[in-house]
């Protein structure tokens, strides 16, 4: 080979020199892996193809910029467990991973290619934010990325991993993607940092308290997954990818296993306590029903009164939504409604059937919730369930009262199959409330109101709060033996294999926000 090839090799060498020992050491001393290690770890060994590795930074309009090859981001594609994925990994070691015009172009290219080829996009974020030296060009870069996020929304899955800082406008790209992962202790996200907060509001708050992984996974609900370190986080992304399809026209991968679909699970008969005021853990129910007890929970530390996540039934991915009687009695409040609605929207966009396990005493009462807008927020859950056209199954385990009965996938709003366990209580309201309204006068006039109330409550329980009235009216398809839940759900799901729904033409509906 001649000179041309030598020049080619020399260029390769220069790129490799950029990733010297010092490059690795700097990031390792922060307890983090480098951008390069992360992206290689994400992809199957030897499958990563890098794009635009040599691009220099754009010229700066102010101050000093040092040019590095690749402009602080590693971008490209490869396979994850054999399936094509596009990804980019911001490099904190190169100009703080700051986003300049070229850096943004690379991310945009990855998005465009992913959209063209119907592949998921994974963004590994570790960036100081917009590159000040490049001025408005870097802001325009963000704008271009945001637009791609919105274009790709509901077409290909988008996953963001915050593995370092993400501040200011930078947070809005992850915010528009489907799932956000964070590393414990080394990642943070906020619109304004602690320094500005101190200057403007005189509020003293640490980075971790303002936007660390714990805050976003428990209080704000911004992040769905928290992992203890970079390597575990990347394994988490790979696991999530196994449950979801590559785009909105494919189905999720079929993963056969040896768990028989007609498995009889007798312990389900005793899981709901006799006393309707006693809680239990709905996750136990989910684990006993799904394949091999494997349930990949989403946002497990946020709004724990609703449980959402992925599992499989006979090898097919399902999205599970369940009220959690163990937390706040499983009642629906603002946070749980929004959490449920967002998960349903994801499942519906990506052809994942929804299985609902219902035990809900109602919406959370009180001025706190009303003033924060439980009406418009609860409406999100109702809207999401109603709009979803994927197969929708419900099992009513116990309580199913009032508006919450309707919201949690009643047949009237489009639920395909509703099953009820014999312990189900379906009514407009619970016994105590109903008796207080229906027999107000009688109770006031009674010699022993407490005794009369007890009798009436018992009568109401006996005659009204059972699944058989709803069953006889056709609002429930079948009252089932809890032990057979798995098989009933599997068969119902199979019968909906070719479900199709035709909807009126429109630009898009106006979901309450």
């Amino acid at each position, binding site marked *: 080979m001649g000179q041309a090839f030598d020049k080619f090799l020399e260029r390769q060498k220069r790129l490799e020199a950029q990733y010297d020992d010092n490059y690795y050491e700097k990031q*390792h001393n922060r*307890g*983090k892996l480098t951008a390069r290690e992360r992206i290689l770890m994400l992809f199957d060994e030897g499958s990563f193809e890098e794009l635009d590795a040599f691009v220099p930074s754009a010229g700066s309009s102010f101050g000093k910029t040092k040019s590095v090859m690749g402009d602080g981001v590693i971008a490209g594609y490869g396979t994850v467990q054999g399936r094509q994925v596009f990804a980019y990994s911001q490099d904190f070691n190169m100009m703080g991973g700051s986003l300049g015009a070229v850096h943004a172009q690379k991310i945009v290219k990855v998005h465009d290619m992913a959209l063209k080829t119907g592949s998921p996009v994974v963004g590994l974020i570790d960036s100081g934010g917009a590159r000040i030296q490049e001025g408005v060009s870097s802001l325009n870069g963000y704008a271009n990325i945001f637009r791609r996020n919105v274009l790709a929304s509901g077409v290909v899955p988008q996953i963001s991993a915050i593995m370092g800082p993400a501040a200011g406008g930078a947070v809005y790209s992850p915010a528009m993607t489907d799932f956000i992962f964070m590393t414990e202790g080394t990642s943070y996200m906020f619109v304004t940092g602690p320094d500005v907060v101190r200057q403007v509001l005189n509020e003293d708050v640490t980075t971790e308290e303002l936007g660390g992984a714990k805050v976003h996974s428990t209080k704000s609900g911004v992040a769905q997954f928290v992992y203890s*370190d970079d390597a*575990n986080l990347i*394994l988490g992304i790979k696991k999530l990818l196994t449950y979801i399809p590559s785009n909105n026209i494919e189905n999720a991968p079929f993963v056969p296993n040896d768990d028989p679909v007609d498995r009889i699970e007798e312990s389900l008969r005793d899981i709901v306590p006799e006393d309707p*005021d006693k809680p239990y853990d709905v996750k136990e129910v989910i684990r006993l029903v799904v394949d091999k007890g494997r349930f990949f929970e989403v946002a497990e530390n946020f709004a724990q009164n609703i449980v959402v996540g992925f599992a499989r039934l006979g090898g097919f991915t399902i999205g599970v939504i369940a009220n959690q009687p163990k937390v706040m009695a499983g009642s629906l409040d603002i946070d749980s409604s929004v959490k449920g609605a967002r998960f349903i929207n994801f499942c519906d966009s990506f052809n994942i059937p929804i299985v609902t396990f219902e035990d809900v005493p109602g919406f959370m009462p009180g001025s706190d919730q009303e003033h924060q807008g439980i009406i418009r927020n609860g409406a999100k859950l109702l809207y999401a369930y109603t709009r979803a056209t994927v197969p929708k199954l419900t099992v009513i385990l116990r309580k199913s009262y009032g508006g919450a009965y309707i919201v949690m996938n009643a047949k009237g709003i489009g639920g395909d199959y509703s099953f009820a366990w014999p312990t189900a209580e379906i009514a407009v309201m619970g016994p105590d409330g109903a008796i207080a309204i229906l027999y107000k006068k009688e109770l006031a006039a009674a010699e022993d109101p407490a005794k009369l109330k007890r009798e009436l409550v018992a009568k109401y329980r006996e005659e009204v709060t059972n699944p058989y009235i709803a069953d006889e009216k056709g609002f429930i398809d079948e009252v089932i033996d809890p032990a057979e839940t798995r098989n009933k759900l599997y068969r119902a799901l199979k019968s909906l294999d070719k479900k199709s729904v035709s909807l009126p033409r429109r630009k898009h509906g106006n979901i309450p926000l």
Partner: protein
Amino acid sequence: MMDSNTQNIQNRTLIAVSNNQEKSSYEFQVKNQYEFSSKGRKLKVEMVEEADGIMLISCEGVRYPFEIVSIKQNTYEVMVNGVSYTFTIETPFSLKRRQILAAQKPADAGEELRAPMPGKIVSVLVKPGQEVQPGTALVVLEAMKMQNTLSATEAGIVGTVAVKEGQTVSKDDLLVETKKPKA
């Protein structure tokens, strides 16, 4: 047990760090799925599932009944011979990361348990000075006609108990405060 999630661990050094108070650690080298070594000693380990579903772990020919209670990321809870052990599996790098983060972290002030919703305190299950573990039940709050057990999420020592049985509380009222045990 091999999940799609399992990393390739052949020919690597791993460290098991106990999550109990004493924080002991145990370093071992993995040759492959069945062969390990620790401090120069070679160990042959195998998992066997009996016909009745009971799992046995065979180490150097001796069998112990064993059960994986839970796996969460790299935290494992296993039961061997009826004794439960909780530990994390670390790589030399992730162990170093833990140390870096621990050094940066300011001394943890402890935990404040606040009412997640308005309700009535049915019972208070702890006294000041009592040691608690993650998951120890602290108070039972009745709300939405349901008894909700509220538990500690971190290990600590109970400081103030701000409520009495029968008391009504509003959302975000302080219930119990725990402090970190002194190292």
